């Protein structure tokens, strides 16, 4: 057991720094891509400067899902695959909270696949970071929903047979209103993607390719230039009226996003899609409450329930 406080606490309103935000030392293996994701997340929170107590970091189960222990914010570690519905409860139960969910490809696309679809379609205000390593790492090398065909694992020693999930297509199809893709070796890009996701009003997802050096070494080398790969960014439309702008990617164009998602491995990185018009469930529920209360003319809870019982007489 650790003791409560060794250093004096920061005064209320003091800036959030990496030092303040650091909690337990990560349990990840040396060389794991997730370290870089954590470092980028500290930078994101340093830039956002939300009130400390309003930040919530949540996760399901997996290597990457240990994340909340390493970030000094309100947070928690739930059951496998169900962090999103839990986070939906946090977001809808505390509308002033900034809710971040971290998880892996198994948590998000396999056991939690149904929740991903429905949280996306409801557009609950949550930022979801999927640290995709294309392998089950915590359980030591089984095939994951994003393992490529032919990947040799303990459950497919002859090489994976099943078609993997295409994360971008899946997310677009679910109705996520912000969909982006990054790589754990690109700290600045990751930080920018997470920052934009956090600022998006709605369900925002960043998939980060994060290598598992123990069980799937070299999985994402195809996008690492120093290993001979190609790091190609999405050229976003600038709306500057220039002739070359016409060919650039319009992030509000769903069809164009699907086309990007269908590109050959390793594909492009950046924001695939952003829908700024669809309203969040948070806003819709708040409006429902406001309209309902208009009808009841702000009656007290007691008066409302008394009226209900009076009708049952």
């Amino acid at each position: 057991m650790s003791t409560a406080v060794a250093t004096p606490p920061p005064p209320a309103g003091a800036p959030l720094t990496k030092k303040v935000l650091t909690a337990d030392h990560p349990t990840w293996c040396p060389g794991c891509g997730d370290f870089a994701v954590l470092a980028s997340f500290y930078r994101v929170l340093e830039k956002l400067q939300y009130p400390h107590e309003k930040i919530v970091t949540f996760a399901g189960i997996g290597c990457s899902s240990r994340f909340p222990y390493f970030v000094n914010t309100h947070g928690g570690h739930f059951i496998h695959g169900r962090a999103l519905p839990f986070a939906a409860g946090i977001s809808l139960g505390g509308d002033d909270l900034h809710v971040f969910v971290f998880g892996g490809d198994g948590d998000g696309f396999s056991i939690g696949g149904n929740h991903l679809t429905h949280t996306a379609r409801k557009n609950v205000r949550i930022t979801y970071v999927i640290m995709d390593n294309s392998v089950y790492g915590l359980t030591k090398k089984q095939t994951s929903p994003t393992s490529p065909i032919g990947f040799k694992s303990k459950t497919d020693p002859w090489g994976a047979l099943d078609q993997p999930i295409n994360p971008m297509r899946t997310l677009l199809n679910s109705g996520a209103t912000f969909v982006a893709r990054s790589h754990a070796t690109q700290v600045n890009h990751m930080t920018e993607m997470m920052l934009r996701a956090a600022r998006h009003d709605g369900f925002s997802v960043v998939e980060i390719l994060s290598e598992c050096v123990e069980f799937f070494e070299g999985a994402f080398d195809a996008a690492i230039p120093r290993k001979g790969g190609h790091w190609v960014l999405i050229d976003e439309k600038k709306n500057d009226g220039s002739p070359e702008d016409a060919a650039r990617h319009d992030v509000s164009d769903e069809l164009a996003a699907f086309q990007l998602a269908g590109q050959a491995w390793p594909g492009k990185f950046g924001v695939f899609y952003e829908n700024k018009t669809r309203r969040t469930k948070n806003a819709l529920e708040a409006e429902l409450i406001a309209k309902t209360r208009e009808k009841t003319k702000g009656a007290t809870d007691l008066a409302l329930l008394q009226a209900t019982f009076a009708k049952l007489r």
Partner: protein
Amino acid sequence: MVSPNTPEASGGASASAAPRSIKDVVIRLAGNSQDGIQAIGGFLARLAGRSDQDVMTYMTIPSTISGGPSIFQVRMGTGDILSAGDRADMLVAFYQHSYDAHIGSLRPGGVLLYDADHVKPVEGDNRFTNVACPITTGTIEAVGGTAKDKGKNIYVLGLIARIFDLEVAKLTQLIRERFGGKNEDIVRNALLAFDAGYAWPQNNLRDLFYRFEAIDRATAVSGRPQVTLDGNSAIAYGFLAAGVRHGAGYPITPWSSIMETLRTELPKYGGVFVQCEDEIASISTALGFSYTGNVAITGSAGPGLSLKMEALSWATMAEMPIVVVNVQRGGPSTGMPTNVEQSDLMQAIYGSHGDTPRVVLAPKNVEDCFYLAIEAVRIARAYSTPVLLLTDQALSSRIEAFDEPDLKALMVPPGPDRTERPADFKPYPLDRQTRHAPAGTRIASGKYPVVTGLEHDEFGHPTGSPKLHAQMNAKRREKIKALAATLPAPELSGDASGEALIVTWGSNYGPAREALERIRAAGVSAAHLHIRHVHPLPHGLEEVLARYRKVVVAELNDEGVYGFGQFATLLRARYALPSIVSTCKTDGLTFKVSELVAGVARHLGNATLEGLVSQARPSPLASR
């Protein structure tokens, strides 16, 4: 336009002189689900709630989506009505199939009232008073041809009102309230149908005229008005009173109406109810709400509860308050979804992986659904623990009248406690009760807590320490034991010691109380113990159980491989008394009083009692 209430005032050309006094009556209405027979039952129940009578109903809903045979049974009378009644005193048969299926449920001497347009009773069967009434043509003549036979239910309501001398002014007021929102023609047609039904016995039935005994004013207590509602509504309103403003669920029979009510009501209270994609998401979302300091509810029926079990284990480990309703139905698997059973007890108490001490409460009747819902939320908050509210299909749809709750005294303010926590705040202190700091709460130390399903230290950080695991397991166990020490002694009625103790939980309360009366009337010393806090058990039960030769645990589940029902198994494990025996059944129906008497008689080896059961009890409506 409505007939006055007393036959004398209606012009004198009327039924026989004085009505015969009866204590209570069981009326079974059998027709098709589209005939609106539930509405008749609803009107009678509401009327009883507004009168001096007590009421209890029983309903079957066809499991087909629309149409099909349906029944509604209502028992009304003077004094405490504890069960819906074993057999009917009056059967109203709308169709031949209604007659065929339900004539067996009519007590000898009872009244068979049938639609002469559709039903031909067996000739020469003189066990009953047969009344052939042209319900269909009578309704059409009254209302006019356009509405076809719509309104038959209200015509029958008129018939019943006349035969049992019910308060017409109150009934017509209920009809106006029910149909008043629609167009005035509907109200007028309904009243025409009612009048026609009310008038028919005067000209055709001279002897069938009853009146309920006047209530003993000394025993009619509270002075508060009566309210009439079903068990699921009572639970939903209990949650509102308890300050619950958040919930999540997935539809499943017979739980759905609770989530429908809360989805509709909560926005008025500034709350949110989320319809989720599945059962697991529902409990997860509810736990997320609780984590923000808004103690939330979810619920389901048996199969859905199974799906929630992993998250329930997390709630025990993370010490997160939540209330989970389980409306039990016939299982296993999809089983008999519109029938009653009490076979989820073990699942409720022990269903999860790992050691998961948690709280299970079971309401005894509709009124108790309201109060135990409030208590479930109170316990969840006070002990930071999951609480299961184990109700059943019979309670979910049964309508009862009870004293309107004193809401002013009961209302609990909602909302999270976000006051800043001191620097020594620990989410999981070993020496104190866990009190989470909801997300959004400042912690003076600047060190923020983690809620977790991993075994953890006092700050919520993962640990592999064997010592801590044992200590934390003990902490989670001891708080449930601390709750047990505060629980009130369960209700014991009857003899302080003797031959038999009937033990029940859940909706068996009413029939068991009636069974006790019959057993004691036969000269057998006996008592009835009803347990609402089924886990943990209240203190002091061992002394009570030891005072009877046989402890007969009556429950609606299978006797299992070893010959004992689920609660009996627990009681035997807990108290190690060989006198604990079981009376179980799984026919999907609530206990009949006679079945309970028979169960006790069998265990006592008491031939007199057994003889009592086989005696046919004539209906109080029988002609003298």
